[in-house]
C-alpha cells in the first residue's frame, strides 16, 4: 500500500480517541486527546499542509492547558462508570447504521490521491487551479495558503477573527463574578 504512513497515523488517532472516550480517569482522557491531536498534526505534515500542522500543534498545546486546568483542580477525577445498557445499545446500533451508510458513500468521492480540482477540472475552471497558477502574481505572497486566506477569501478570515472574538467575550461574560446588580427590581 503506497500511503502506508496515513493508515498508521490515522489508526493511532482512532486508538487515542477510543481510549480517551472509554477511560475512567479524566486526566488520562485529556492526555489521550492530546496524543490524538499530535498524531493528527503529524498527519497534516505528511499530507503536505505545513501551515495547518503548525497551527494544529500550537492550538493543541493551548487546548491541553485549558483542558488540564479543568480536570486537575477538581478533586474528583474518577467518574462513576454507570453503564445504563439501553441507551448505549440503542446509540451504538444507530451509529452503526450511519457508519454503514457512510461507507457506501465514499466511493463517489474522487480517489484519495487525486484532489477534486484535478478530478473534475474538465467541468469548469476550479478556483484551486487559479490559486496555484496566479497566486503569486495576483497577491504577491509566496505562500499560496496565506494568499487564499487573506486576499482571495479574506471575508472568511474576518468571520474567523470574529468567531474567536465572540467566544472570548462569551467566556468573559460567563466567568464574571456578579451576574445581577444588587438592586433587584420587583423581586
Amino acid at each position, binding site marked *: 500500500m503506497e500511503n502506508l504512513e496515513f493508515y498508521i497515523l490515522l489508526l493511532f488517532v482512532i486508538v487515542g480517541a477510543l481510549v480517551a472516550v472509554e477511560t475512567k480517569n479524566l486526566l488520562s482522557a485529556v492526555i489521550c486527546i492530546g496524543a490524538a491531536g499530535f498524531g493528527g498534526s503529524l498527519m497534516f505534515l505528511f499530507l503536505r499542509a505545513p501551515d495547518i500542522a503548525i497551527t494544529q500543534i500550537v492550538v493543541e498545546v493551548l487546548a491541553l492547558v485549558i483542558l488540564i486546568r479543568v480536570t486537575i483542580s477538581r478533586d474528583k477525577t474518577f467518574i462513576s462508570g454507570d453503564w445504563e445498557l439501553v441507551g448505549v445499545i440503542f446509540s451504538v446500533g444507530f451509529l452503526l447504521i*450511519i457508519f454503514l451508510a457512510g461507507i457506501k458513500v465514499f466511493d463517489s468521492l474522487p480517489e484519495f490521491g487525486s484532489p477534486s480540482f484535478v478530478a473534475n477540472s474538465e467541468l469548469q475552471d476550479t478556483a484551486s487551479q487559479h490559486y496555484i497558477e496566479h497566486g503569486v502574481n495576483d497577491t504577491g505572497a509566496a505562500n499560496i495558503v496565506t494568499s487564499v486566506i487573506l486576499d482571495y477569501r479574506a471575508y472568511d478570515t474576518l468571520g474567523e477573527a470574529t468567531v474567536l472574538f465572540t467566544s472570548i467575550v462569551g467566556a468573559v461574560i460567563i466567568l464574571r463574578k456578579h451576574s445581577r446588580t444588587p438592586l433587584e427590581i420587583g423581586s
Partner: protein
Amino acid sequence: MLYAMCFLLFIIGLYCVLVKKNMVKIVLGIVIMEYAVNLFLIMLGYRSGGIAPIVGQDEYTSGLVDASFIQASVDPLPQALVLTAIVISLGSLALMISICIRTYERYGTFDITQIRRLKG
C-alpha cells in the same frame, strides 16, 4: 478506505457525545469530531506525491510559476478552510470549558444526571 476511517473517528466523537454522562467527556467528544472533520477536509485536497502549496524562490521565474510546481502542488483551498475550522474549534472549546467550570462551581459535580434541575 482512508475516508471511511476518518468517518469512523467522526462516529466515535458522536458516540462519546451521545452516551457519556460527564460534562468534560462530552466536550472531549466534540473535540474528537472536530479533529475528524479537519482531517477529512485536508485529505480531500491531497495529491499523491504532491508538494506543499508554497512557491519556492527557484520555482518562480520571470513572473511565471513553472509547470513542475503547478503539476505537483497540493490543493490550497481545503487548507484555508481547515485553518478557520481549527480556530473555531479552539474558540468553542474555551467557551464550553468556562461553562463547565461555572456549572461545577454551582452544582459541585460534572455529572449531567445530577444536574437535572431542568426537566425535558
